[in-house]
């Protein structure tokens, strides 16, 4: 992983800052995953049972 923060010219994160950034990143990932799941389920519910029925050819 290319981390620009860790080179000598940029901002160097402390271990604590890295740990908290990782926790924030995981929280964002989980939130986005939950949103995807929610939108999927709501879509299925709003479209009703017909969503799985193929249109006649």
């Amino acid at each position, binding site marked *: 992983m290319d981390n620009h*923060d860790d080179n000598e010219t940029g*901002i160097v994160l402390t271990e604590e*800052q890295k740990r908290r950034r990782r926790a*924030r990143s995981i*929280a964002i990932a989980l939130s986005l995953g939950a949103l995807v799941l929610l939108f999927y389920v709501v879509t299925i519910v709003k479209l009703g049972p017909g969503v799985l029925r193929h249109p006649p050819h």
Partner: protein
Amino acid sequence: MSLVSQSADLVRPGASVAPAEPSLAGVGDYIALLKPRVMSLVVFTALVGLMLAPGHLHPVIGFASLLCIAVGAGASGALNMWYDADIDAMMARTRNRPIPAGRITAGEAMGFGMTLAVGSVAVLGLVANWLAAALLAFTIFFYAVVYSVWLKRSTPQNIVIGGAAGAFPPMIGWAAATGAVSIESVTLFLIIFFWTPPHFWALALVKSDDYARAGIPMLPVVAGRAETRRQIAIYSALLAPLGVAPYLLGFAGAAYGVIAAVSGAAFLALALRLARLGDGPAGDKAAKALFGYSILYLFGLFAALLIENRLLALLGGAGA
């Protein structure tokens, strides 16, 4: 949740601007911005509005609507903390909040709050209906702008008018289920609206030094403690019969009516005791007792509405 602190132009004029440095904010700090305790009452009252509403709402749509209302309430909390960071730093009760404690910058909180506000309103509109979304948007605007920016620092009536923001959730829940505003949802709104002043003024009586230090014109600071106790008694006298209104209007049963009448009378009795005791340790104790009871009262009233409604629905279903 950016790595580097936000630029100064996102910070409210007058607030201190921290130099840009890597963020030390933890996930818990962002959760604290959402005021989870306030959010829990919002979710509960919205749930009651949703469940009491006539007709059938799919549980998934109901859950998604509640989630949007919760996130919208959290967004208001974050925007309130963004604007109030300067006075929060002066009060013992609030100085450890994420912004005054320096764990989150004002700009980060504002960005977080705005993102959640726009997202929650848009999703509620798409999932439920646009009336509920409009009510949620108005609630966020009312709390963040009308209350936090305008009323809180300018008038002792701040929590009377601003209390409307906390009273909207059952109306939003009802609107999410029915697509309409009705006399029932307005009644639930009014109960919380008239509950808010005695609830907050009881706290303000105990914390008036804190509010005075921060320059917030709470009623005990501006009009005095005796006048505050008198106003608490007046609002409690209005609240007690209002609590029974759901029974009188026919959308709650006799069990609720009895619970509301008894608990409302107890509320009024505590308010009158507070007015009688005046200042001193006994008065402070009475104010704390009223504050604690007020939370129990509102929770109990809405829980009674919900439980009775579900029981009657079950019995009605079994009898059909």
